[in-house]
């Protein structure tokens, strides 16, 4: 399959046959070496682990196929609660944190109280461990026995996640807003756009685009942290695994629960990587910021 070189100056890609063959050989060799290395490494690790004196006991306690099959349906059902918490919390976090981030960028003196409040909020909720917020709200608020206030632990666990994550995500948004060059704001204002219009049409669309990868990262983290709500008692996947494990003295349900989380977070992680890669390529191709 030889191709005669195109006329010089023609806008096509051309590589001479010898180099083409070489490139194909190199690619094949790289793929082979990579695969062989991966398989070899896996075999060595598996051998090392299974040769340890405690392996049979560990295998029975953590990797029991029967226990796995028994607990999986119940765990999946319980996992739906985690999914529900996540699906409710995430959109509210996005809205709430964006409002906080915007509040922190307001410069007019009249907004000082709002700005101070937003800053305190972010400082406090970023400083307190999420699990503590869940404890305090989940046990504290229902104990007040206020009329009309829900006592459902799932409700308060979700609220705690929203409060805690909004503080983080607000900082991500704020960094995004800061990453938009001031000249963009200046250009918008010079055209007669108000501060509000400048934010809405010029600054925010660029800010949000800049922070999509870290936002996806926080989504993944939130998916996992829905398990923290288990400390309040509702039967979500971790709680279910605990129940299964304590009734059978076998830890396989924990491994199963971990696999369920991984099954959801890995696609999300790959998606985040893909988005990040695509944006990096676009940045390289373009460059005008």
């Amino acid at each position: 399959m030889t191709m005669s070189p195109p006329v010089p100056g023609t806008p096509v890609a051309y590589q001479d046959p010898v180099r083409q063959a070489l490139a194909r050989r190199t690619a094949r060799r790289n793929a082979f070496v990579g695969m062989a290395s991966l398989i070899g490494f896996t075999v060595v690790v598996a051998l090392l682990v299974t040769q340890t004196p405690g392996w049979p006991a560990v295998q029975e306690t953590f990797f029991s196929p029967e226990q796995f099959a028994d607990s999986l349906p119940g765990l999946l059902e319980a996992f739906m609660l985690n999914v529900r918490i996540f699906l409710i919390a995430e959109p509210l976090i996005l809205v709430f944190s964006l409002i906080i981030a915007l509040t922190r960028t307001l410069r007019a003196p009249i907004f000082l109280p709002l700005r101070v409040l937003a800053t305190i909020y972010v400082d406090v909720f970023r400083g307190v461990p999420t699990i503590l917020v869940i404890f305090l709200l989940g046990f504290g608020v229902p104990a007040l026995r206020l009329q009309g206030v829900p006592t459902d632990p799932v409700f308060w666990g979700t609220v705690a996640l929203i409060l805690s994550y909004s503080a983080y995500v607000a900082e991500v948004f704020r960094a995004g807003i800061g990453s938009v060059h001031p000249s963009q704001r200046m250009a918008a204002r010079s055209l007669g756009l108000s501060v509000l219009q400048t934010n809405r049409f010029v600054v925010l669309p660029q800010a949000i685009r800049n922070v999509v990868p870290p936002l996806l990262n926080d989504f993944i983290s939130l998916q996992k942290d829905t398990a923290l709500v288990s400390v309040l008692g509702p039967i979500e996947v971790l709680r279910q695994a605990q129940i299964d494990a304590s009734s059978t003295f076998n830890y396989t349900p924990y491994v199963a629960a971990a696999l369920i989380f991984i099954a959801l977070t890995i696609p999300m992680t790959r998606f985040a990587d893909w988005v990040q890669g695509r944006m990096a390529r676009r940045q390289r191709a373009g460059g005008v910021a």
Partner: protein
Amino acid sequence: MTALLEVSGVWKSFDEHSVLRGIDLHVDAHQAVVLIGASGSGKSTLLRCINGLETVDAGRIVLDGDVEVSDPGIDLDRVRRRIGIVFQSYNLFPHMTVLDNVTLAPRKVVGVPAARAREEAVALLDRFGLGAKAGEYPDRLSGGQAQRVAIVRALAMQPELMLFDEITSALDPLLVGEVLDAVRDLKSGGLTIVMATHEMGFAREVADRVCFLHDGIVREEGPPAEIFNAPREPETRDFLARVFG
């Protein structure tokens, strides 16, 4: 002739560094006034003050005899509709197509219906040879094209006064010509222009008046022939000698 723009005794400093030191500038309607001077002489700062992008420390900037831009209480958004500005670094909105860049302000600020804004934008883009680029994003444009889009974006607001802040300084030398052609076109259309530039040949050709800025004031001004051929002030002579090597 009434002055479209009257700058009188304007002072402006950043921290301890004073950039404008009581500057005066008078621009008649349909005139093109070119500001020359070394970097840091205050050209950009003056243009930004005229557009209200910087507040002045003292003095007055009056547009069309009645609107005082320098009045702290004025609605700058209304003033800015009447004064267009184009920057050295284009500052196009990278997340919008060329067409959206041009129609954003007419639609959102003036309230022009989308269809009409689009029509007018396309006509303007055509006039500056950019019709084929309407659907492109700014990162697909050459510097010269981007800067012409920036000019069209400012023009779409139908300003009475256009400010150009060293609009060719960031361009590849091969692309300077197409941008200057656009300015020449606007000048012959009768638009009032204040332009800061280092393109002395162009200043000589299109300027009605050239102002040499030095130490925060207009040190010398006059018709281009006078300034370039027979400068009176030693600073002007010195500057021109350095520019023309």
